[in-house]
């Protein structure tokens, strides 16, 4: 491990409700190398978006960060004041949001969106400089220069998402958090937008956290994948390892249930339903659906351990086999 770009340690985000705390994110630990692309996958409600928002410092009550550290450039972001966090957000960590159509202001031109982002962090001295900068930014994300004077409604969904990428990279952040950036787009446009994101990321050598549930996209875009289930990170490993030799039974079922073009009419789902975050089963949260469940699993919560070199998982099957 050399000089990680971002470290997340024992992050816990709880929602405090009248009926008790709901553990949206429970003890999540991972780190990101410079220029690395990490995917966070999980079903709806697994805590992947909450993890991303916690890193961005965008958790709002009733959700509360209970404990944990998010370390960027040697600083624990969770200890920063609101104003200090504001200076980091957008500048060193950028968010590319899920619904591009809802994240642009309909009465602002594309140019003004980008200028706003830059002005929030830096003083703009001369207008001419900034327009040249906007042109080169738009070119980087594959948009023609006339887009800078357009309003969001004049753009297609893919072009709007490219605008949000341009806003994300305009201050050259070292970490980009992309929360399902293509979930509302068609496949062809998705492919183009992801290629644009990849190109921009490589130019900056920025680390990317891609949040999503599309395993196809993860397989093609990411270097490493973290699998989340019921608020916990259950496995993390390189993309090849996750797809070829998944360790956690949930990951195994997830990988084997993926529809592909080479097997037909073979419908494998994961039996049972994901648990409600309010009422988690005792022991391992996956135990009611797990085909390899042991008595032990129903009582004791497994620890998140390095089961093989560089491969972390929380499953009793691998406990005692730590390397």
């Amino acid at each position, binding site marked *: 491990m050399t000089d990680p770009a971002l470290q997340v340690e024992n992050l816990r985000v709880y929602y405090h409700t009248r009926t008790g705390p709901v553990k949206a994110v429970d003890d999540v630990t991972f780190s990101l190398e410079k220029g690395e692309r990490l995917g966070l996958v999980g079903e709806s409600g697994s805590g992947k978006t909450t993890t991303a928002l916690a890193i961005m410092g965008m958790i709002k009550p009733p959700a509360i960060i209970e404990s944990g550290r998010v370390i960027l450039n040697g600083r624990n972001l969770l200890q920063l004041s609101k104003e200090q966090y504001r200076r980091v957000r957008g500048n060193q960590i950028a968010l590319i949001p899920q619904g591009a159509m809802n994240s642009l202001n309909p009465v602002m031109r594309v140019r003004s969106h980008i200028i706003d982002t830059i002005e929030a962090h830096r003083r703009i001295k001369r207008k001419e400089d900034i327009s040249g900068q906007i042109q080169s930014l738009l070119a980087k994300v594959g948009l023609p220069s006339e887009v800078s004077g357009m309003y969001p409604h004049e753009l297609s969904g893919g072009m709007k998402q490219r605008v949000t990428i341009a806003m994300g990279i305009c201050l050259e952040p070292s970490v980009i958090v992309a929360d399902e950036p293509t979930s509302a787009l068609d496949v*062809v446009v998705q*492919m183009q937008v992801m290629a644009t994101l990849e190109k921009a990321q490589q130019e900056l050598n920025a680390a990317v956290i891609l949040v999503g549930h599309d395993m196809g996209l993860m397989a093609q875009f990411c270097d490493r994948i973290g699998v989340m289930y019921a608020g916990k990170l259950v496995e993390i490993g390189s993309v090849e390892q996750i797809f070829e030799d998944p360790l956690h039974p949930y990951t195994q079922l997830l990988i084997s249930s993926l529809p592909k073009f080479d097997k037909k009419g073979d419908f494998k789902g994961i039996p049972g339903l994901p648990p409600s975050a309010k009422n988690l089963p005792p022991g391992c949260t996956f135990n009611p659906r797990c085909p390899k469940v042991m008595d032990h699993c129903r009582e004791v919560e497994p620890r998140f351990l390095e089961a093989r070199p560089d491969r972390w998982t929380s499953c009793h099957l691998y406990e005692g086999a730590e390397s």
Partner: protein
Amino acid sequence: MSIPLLEARNVTRVFGTGLFKKTGNVAVDNISLTISEDRPTITAIAGESGSGKTTLARLLLGALPATEGEVLYKGDPLSKLSRHKWREFRREVQTIFQDPFDAFNPFYKVDHVLTVPLSIFKLARSRQEANSQIVEALELVGLRAEDTLGRYPHQLSGGQRQRLMVARALLLKPKVILADEPVSMVDASLRATILESILKLKEERSITVLYITHDLTTAYQVSDRMIVLYKGSIAEAGDVEQVIHDPQHPYTKLLISSIPQPDPKEKWEKDAHGGALRPLTPGGCKFVDRCPAAFDRCHSTLPPLYMSSPGRAAACFLYRDHPVVEASEVLDTTAQPAL
């Protein structure tokens, strides 16, 4: 060949024409399609958003009148059906909607959606008979009556609700079911059970299914044949194995290569381009602005469907030496069991 159960004859649907606006948005452009009941099949209608797939489904259901052309049910146009025939059409042609959350009235127990159709169409003579039909339908979709009946919609998961919708459609003993994006709102791990019940509709109940989707992977999983729509027209049609593994229309090729495969060993052909603002020249092929193989003729003339190879049709001038066909002609020759 006998009279097809459902037939679209050169249907076109234009939205947004009125007093002030002369040019409308052509959602479905001159599509012909037949659905016969001779052999049950699952046909996928695949396309991106805006390709007209849902509009086509609504036209076939009679939920939307066609601007031009006609939809025929057993040879009679939908617009001229007698009351008696309309009722029969309503029973024989069923639908499964996209959103399992909106399709239920939250104030009624889920039993309501199952008992009402039975009583409206007088399909059961007694309450016991109705009950046994309901239990049987639930079983086919993999639900247990004791887990589902007597509950309110919010007490069931999205997957269970969507399977209830399949059971509801099934109760009316339909001949055709139109399923409009039935799995797009359901979590990945629960999709398989719904797809499985759709496949069972065909195999155990001999129901023909039109599976409308933007997701080519699930379309490939369940269907026998596939129609690819692009901007309201049929781009390609044929046996699903052939369309997926050997696409012929340049659009289908682009579409299939754009799908990220859940296997890091299969490389994704990424291309960042595509943000250009190029207006379409009217009259030409609708894909000409994005087509890598476009030539002069593509800009001026709309290509008809050519029989690009036996059992295949592609609306592309690359196949101009081949005979011109209707989509249903090629599809009918390919109909064969899926598995």
